[in-house]
């Protein structure tokens, strides 16, 4: 058992190498992951559903393939956790909402199909803010997930379950989704690496939609090598998602050369001042110094319209959500009210009132308002125009620099319950991450230190569209020179 725990503290690429060399079986790795979930999940509460049968069957298939002398892929046999807004055929898919309580997916999301195809055992479905709307995972209709670094703190959100699962090494890798920061922000709060790919890089087929022009599926991982490996598995065009891009997928791992000589890093001025915790700012500046030491150059970048990112995001995201969530009407699947309704409209209204939680209702309401007659031009269209200006700002900054550097979050993980009664204060947790979604470009969060209180701090690299390889290369170079990403929460015990 002690050996098993030490085993899981290794990054996914090392586990995969041990499996390929026959030193350990994929079944043993999956059993270790399931055992750790059993041991830690009652405390951390990262998983909504655990799928041991599915996982062990896949692990056995990998072991059998190896025994037959087949060539295994770079992540074969490595267990993975899946955010509960991604469909896994036959498995509960609740989006942490009462309206989908008991719903079983009837097909695999494309990303799920792809991780299965490379032999990755799925160990379970992770908690999230209901329908991915939130920054703390407290909006889950079922329970709150705890940050493995400090159980009194939130793990961030909305992919808080996936981030906590990887931080506590219950699974070496996880999939999340990011609409305004939902991979990067929890990765930052939980001291792990998280990549939101370029819009269109990864198929959204089988991802329950929130903001369809913003949503992207991505990796939560122990380090940049693992994030690169998983991104390579899930990236690429999919005929079932017409917004997935016909752009070749490069060899992301091959791009991790460790060399950042001559790379131009722009530090985003607007995200280094007021509202940013001084400890966070200092820590991000140490990243800049480290990169300079490796031969990169740094300078000041500017995204002048970034102050408008919050209102633009909270108009466009909810407008798209109000349309996407119209499908939950209690007719074909999900919850239907037991109350007697005078007509079908009343039945929809009661079903939705009972099924959706407060934050989802707020976003459906603002979105409906912004799209309603008389307000469309003033709100939705105006927000789309300011989105253009923001996108042009980001593109201009990325013309001047190869990557942009900023904090991932203005503050580190806050206390459970601290912001639940102030939704707009909660929205501020994502002010550093909105721009990448609005511009459609990739963003990466890497651990860059700890506060005096011992909470992880994240640095964010933002790159040009379809240049995930560049930000991963910078993140990897930084991780080769530092050890923040190998620190583990005390929860895992000393010497792990």
């Amino acid at each position: 058992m002690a050996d098993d725990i030490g085993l899981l503290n290794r990054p996914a690429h090392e586990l995969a190498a041990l499996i390929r060399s026959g030193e350990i079986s994929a079944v043993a790795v999956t059993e270790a992951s399931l055992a750790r979930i059993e041991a830690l999940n009652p405390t951390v509460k990262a998983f909504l559903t655990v799928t041991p049968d599915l996982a062990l069957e896949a692990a056995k298939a990998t072991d059998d393939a190896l025994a037959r002398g087949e060539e295994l892929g770079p992540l074969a046999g490595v267990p993975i956790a899946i955010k509960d807004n991604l469909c896994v055929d036959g498995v509960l898919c609740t989006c942490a909402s009462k309206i989908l309580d008991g719903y079983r997916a009837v097909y695999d999301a494309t990303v799920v199909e792809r991780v299965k195809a490379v032999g990755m055992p799925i160990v379970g479905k992770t908690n999230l803010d209901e329908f991915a709307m939130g920054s703390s995972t407290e909006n889950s209709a079922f329970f709150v997930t705890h940050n493995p670094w400090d159980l009194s703190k939130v793990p961030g959100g909305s992919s808080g379950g996936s981030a906590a699962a990887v931080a506590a090494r219950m699974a070496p890798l996880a999939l999340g989704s990011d609409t305004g920061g939902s991979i990067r922000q929890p990765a930052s709060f939980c001291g792990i690496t998280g990549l939101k790919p370029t819009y269109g890089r990864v198929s959204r087929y089988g991802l329950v939609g929130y903001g369809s022009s913003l949503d992207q599926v991505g990796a939560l991982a122990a380090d940049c090598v693992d994030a690169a490996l998983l991104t390579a598995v899930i990236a690429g065009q999919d005929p079932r998602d017409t917004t997935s891009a016909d752009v070749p997928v490069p060899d992301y791992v091959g791009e991790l050369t460790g060399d950042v000589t001559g790379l131009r890093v722009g530090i985003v001025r607007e995200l280094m001042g007021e509202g940013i915790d001084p400890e966070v700012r200092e820590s991000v500046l140490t990243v800049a110094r480290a990169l300079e030491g490796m031969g990169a150059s740094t300078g000041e970048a500017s995204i002048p319209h970034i102050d408008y990112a919050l209102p633009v995001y909270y108009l466009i995201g909810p407008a798209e959500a109000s349309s996407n969530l119209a499908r939950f009407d209690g007719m074909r699947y999900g919850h239907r009210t037991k109350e007697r309704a005078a007509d079908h409209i009343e039945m929809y209204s009661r079903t939705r009132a009972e099924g959706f939680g407060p934050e989802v209702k707020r976003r459906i309401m603002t979105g409906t308002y912004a799209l309603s007659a008389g307000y469309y031009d003033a709100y939705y269209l105006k927000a789309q125009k300011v989105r253009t200006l923001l996108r042009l700002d980001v593109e201009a900054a990325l013309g001047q620099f190869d990557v942009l550097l900023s904090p991932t979050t203005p503050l580190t993980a806050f206390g459970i319950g601290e912001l639940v009664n102030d939704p707009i204060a909660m929205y501020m947790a994502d002010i550093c991450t909105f721009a990448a979604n609005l511009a459609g470009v990739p963003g990466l969060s890497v651990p860059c230190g700890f506060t005096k209180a011992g909470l992880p701090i994240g640095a964010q690299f933002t790159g040009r569209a379809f240049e995930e390889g560049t930000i991963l290369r910078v993140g990897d170079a930084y991780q080769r020179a530092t050890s923040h990403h190998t620190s583990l929460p005390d929860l895992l015990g000393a010497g792990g």
Partner: protein
Amino acid sequence: MIPVSVTRDDVAHVAKLARLAMSEQELDQMHGYFEAILEHFAKLAAVDTEGVEPTSHPLARANVTREDRVTEPMDRTKLLANAPLADGECFLVPQIMEDE
């Protein structure tokens, strides 16, 4: 022009459009939230967007088409298993038209 305030009746109207039944207390709370978030939305009025094209989507894509192909349909039993009410062949939904 960006409206800076919203009445409780406006909020009740939006709830109706959004098909969300709300208690009086919920309407009060939602009204408070609207007042607060509208302050943030109002900041957009200061941005000059004269002549700026709206971004509806981060990728500039034209229509995407594919060959029309016959493929296997999804399994009906599996789909109906998730229905709140079904008779084995069809979803059962409330009657919306009067009997003859």
